[in-house]
């Protein structure tokens, strides 16, 4: 698992990267009440705001961690936003992105580096 400074996690799944938010992020957001996901097939560039997550407190953007194509989204979290609080590292993945350059993943933090960031 890799981590971004925006508190997203990235998991490699074959030639795809699965993206979600960390437990630290889901706790900080509080009760999640709304999620809006990108359209499948969208070509995204690193840094694009591709998803929206709203908690009882505020709205936040989820940005694309890498250039690529959104190939699958997790409709379950649009239907049941509270999944993001209940299982942020598992059932509440956000989207899968197909990237050209898997080496780009090396630039992200590993778990120890991410723990240092949030502590």
């Amino acid at each position: 698992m890799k981590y971004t400074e925006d508190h997203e996690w990235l998991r490699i799944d074959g030639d795809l990267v699965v993206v979600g938010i960390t437990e630290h992020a889901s706790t900080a957001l509080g009760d999640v009440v709304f999620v809006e996901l990108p359209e499948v097939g969208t070509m995204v560039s690193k840094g694009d705001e591709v998803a929206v997550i709203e908690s009882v407190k505020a709205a936040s953007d989820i940005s694309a961690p890498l250039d690529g194509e959104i190939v699958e989204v997790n409709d379950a979290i649009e239907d049941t936003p509270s999944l993001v609080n209940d299982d942020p590292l598992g059932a509440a993945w956000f989207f899968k992105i197909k990237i050209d350059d898997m080496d780009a993943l090396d630039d992200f933090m590993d778990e120890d580096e991410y723990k240092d960031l949030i502590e």
Partner: protein
Amino acid sequence: MAELLHLPLDELHRELGGKMVPFAGYDMPVQYPAGVMKEHLHTRTAAGLFDVSHMGQVILRADSFKAAALALEALVPVNIAGLGVGRQRYGFFTDDAGGILDDLMLANRGDHVFVVVNAACKEADIAHLRDNLPEDITVEVIEDRALLALQGPLAEDVLAGLNATVREMRFMDVATVELAGAECWVSRSGYTGEDGFEISVPVGAVEDLARALLADERVLPIGLGARDSLRLEGGLCLYGHDIDTGTSPVEAGLTWAIQKIRRTGGDRAGGFPGATRVLSELEDGAARRRVGLKPEGRAPMREGVELYAAEQGGAPVGRVTSGGFGPSVAGPVAMGYLPTALSAPGTVVYGEVRGKRLPVSVVTLPFVPANFKR
């Protein structure tokens, strides 16, 4: 920035796991470990304890309650002199343009008027009182009392466990009640849309009282986050957001708080700042109105969202002044201002969220029926 003030219960909030944030100059708990959603729902089904000690408590005295009340009526368009002993009313200070300087609670406590004002406005309110009331009215700012609110359908049962006399109080009654060994000034009111009590308690006794209430398993501590969602579902205005000097009481839909006696034709009509505008709007209506707004989709529409009459084109016709997720409604809820022609319940307008215009219906407030003990 000035240093944050600390509530008398600051240590207790931290001990309870409160997440502290700056609010109106105070370090305040925005939520506890249960979280906003659970705190909100718990208050609607059981009882929640709120620390509202940041609010201003003021006593106005003259030769009699009535003399103080009549003097205060020069600043507040409410029938204060007609309040019975042990009764409370909601009101507001108006300015010369008919805007709202602050909203407040006013009580007849026998020989004086007891006033509770918003934290963010309290310094200005106190100066306003001192500058504008006659010299024979004393303005005493109460610094040695905290203020707690116990809200929810089980609030009466919980508080009666400390002193059974509170059961005899009706909505908007005020009484002096001994709680946790201290003389408390209790009102049967609050700002959640639920039954409940607000308790002015000496600072030296507030921790004992709070701990006694929290020892009851039916009570959870509630932070500012749930206080906001509860009052929003209750259709209640938050000063500085839904009402301010740019909104008149008629625009804000607060005409119910202006009794007949203060309106045109009444025995004490007018005589408050901005009366010309307020009285004429009471007769003829205002150009815009505060309304309840129910987004048709699931996306919350927060403060600042612009409202449009059509899905495409045109300039904004209004704006959301409070909005978020309503845990009891289980969906987004909002309030805002719209031209009177678009303010009838059932009217559909469009709120622009992240560049998309989403349909939102005008609805009757409150979103959740009030549960007061009349």
